[in-house]
């Protein structure tokens, strides 16, 4: 979905990005003192990402795929700045919105309206912009009758509808999505997909993690297959799906 006449600029540039996780198994002071000196035995060290280098051009929809634990979500979080890489550099330009979990900033005791403002601010909208988009957000979510109810009384469907509606109104250049593309009932799912296609037409970059080969095939124009933290394939979608299947067999 790249634009024809203008050369698409690179919006995300990762160079040799590596991420090491150290997982300690005990947390309290007592346990630390008791295990002092032996504490290395209680550490687990593994590389979630190893030397990942890739450029992402504006307007592409790129799918990050791989088996569980292959590092795709970690890569998404590093791109989002939520976790820092140990090695390598990551550069980015343009406004970014991360949809790693719908309604991550929702507070159950606040009303839908208050949560719209809070969540929009978390995703980077100003108060004024939120006021501007407010009606459009509520219309998209189709829960106008409940907008002044505390969200703890919402059904899970209403919750994700509102969260998704906010997220798509943030006007990002880069959208990071982790398995949350299709939510709610079928008509709403269609609406979500239509919105994503609109995003693609508008030249927004979408980076998403998914296990659904079908979704990847219908949306992406580029696929990156990860295995054990390394990029094993980077290219067009159809071969990407084959490479993903191969990586499943190879592990």
């Amino acid at each position, binding site marked *: 979905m790249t*634009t024809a*006449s*203008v*050369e*698409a*600029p690179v*919006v995300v*540039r990762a160079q040799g990005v590596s991420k090491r*996780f150290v997982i300690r198994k005990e*947390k*309290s*002071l007592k346990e*630390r003192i008791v295990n002092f000196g032996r504490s290395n035995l209680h550490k687990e060290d593994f590389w979630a990402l190893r030397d990942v280098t890739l450029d992402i051009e*504006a*307007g592409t929809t790129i799918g990050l795929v791989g088996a569980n634990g292959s590092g795709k979500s970690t890569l998404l*979080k*590093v*791109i*989002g*700045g*939520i*976790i*820092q*890489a140990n090695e390598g*550099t*990551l*550069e*980015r*330009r*343009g406004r970014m919105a*991360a949809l*790693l*979990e719908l309604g*991550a*900033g929702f*507070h159950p*005791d*606040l009303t839908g309206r*208050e949560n719209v*403002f*809070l969540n929009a*601010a*978390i*995703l980077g909208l*100003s*108060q004024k912009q939120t006021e501007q988009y407010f009606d459009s957000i509520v219309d998209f979510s189709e829960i106008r009758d409940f907008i002044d109810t505390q969200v703890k009384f919402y059904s899970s469907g209403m919750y994700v509808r509102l969260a998704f509606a906010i997220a798509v109104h943030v006007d990002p*250049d880069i959208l990071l999505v982790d398995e949350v593309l299709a939510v709610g009932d079928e008509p709403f799912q269609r609406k979500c997909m239509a919105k994503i296609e609109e995003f693609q*037409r*508008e*030249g*927004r970059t979408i980076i998403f993690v998914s296990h659904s080969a079908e979704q990847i095939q219908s949306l992406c124009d580029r696929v990156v297959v990860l295995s054990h933290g390394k990029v094993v394939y980077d290219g067009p979608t159809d071969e990407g799906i084959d490479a993903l299947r191969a990586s499943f067999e190879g592990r």
Partner: protein
Amino acid sequence: MSVAQERAQRLAALPFERIGRPVSGGGGGFIAGMKEIAAHRELLGLLVRRELKQRYKDSALGFLWSLIRPLTMLLIYYVAIGQFLGAARGIPQFAIFVFAGLTLWGLYSEIITAGTTSIVSNAGLIKKVYLPREIFPLASVGSALFNFGVQMIVLVGATVVLGQFPLSWNLLYVPAATLIILIYGLALAILLSALNVYLRDVQYLVEVALLIFFWASPIVYSWSFVLEAAERSDLPWLGDVYIASPISTAILAFQKGIWAAGSQDVVMGTNEQTGEPIIAAAQPWPADLDLRLLLMGLIGILLLAIAQRVFSRLQGNFAQEI
């Protein structure tokens, strides 16, 4: 030109931003951090409101509770320490004195308790969205300031009703002392909130430490008691050690500002046998209070910068450690 092409052109003109803060130190990081916070000030306001709302959710009296607690404490200390233990005999306008100390202490302890747990209790957000993480301890400061404001209104109201409104230049000590408390409170909140992610014991340790510091500050007894005790025990340096705590100094300055009766000789009653008036002499204030406040403010700002650097170093791993 299509929307997509316009976007591509605009993006091509933007410079690349390095994601993930440089871990190495230096003043630039501090200033960059402050800039990032300034860019998110609207969100900060919303987070403060959220914190205030969730605290008294579904309660009939709502934020009145933020007044009931300190007023109850005032009553307890007034009766138990003031009357039963007799501290009020040497301290004129004992109620104003105690409430002044409690109000400022309340600000400090609330900033630190709420600030310490602020990162851990916002785990859901920190794992899923990138925000400058200093915003969470800052939001605790905001909601503590709100409660402080409400108590200040009561305190000032009380001085007016009792005819004790401190109309003098000493009043300037009130904002100065509040500022000192804010600087130290924020520095500790930022530092402890980061440490608490790695070692949850910090939040319990903080509770104990605050209890000790409450009694180590001139809140329910006056500074003159400390000086007398130091003289009696032949340890004249005890007063200097006591006053070295920025919290003690700030509370003393605050009292000097708002508690007018402390700066003058006050007739406390008459001696029944001789008929002579019993006079409580003006309270002793530490020498060079202005200079002390200034120095402590500067040290506090330095501490704040260090705390922010430590926070910045630790925050890279928050998302995976929580």
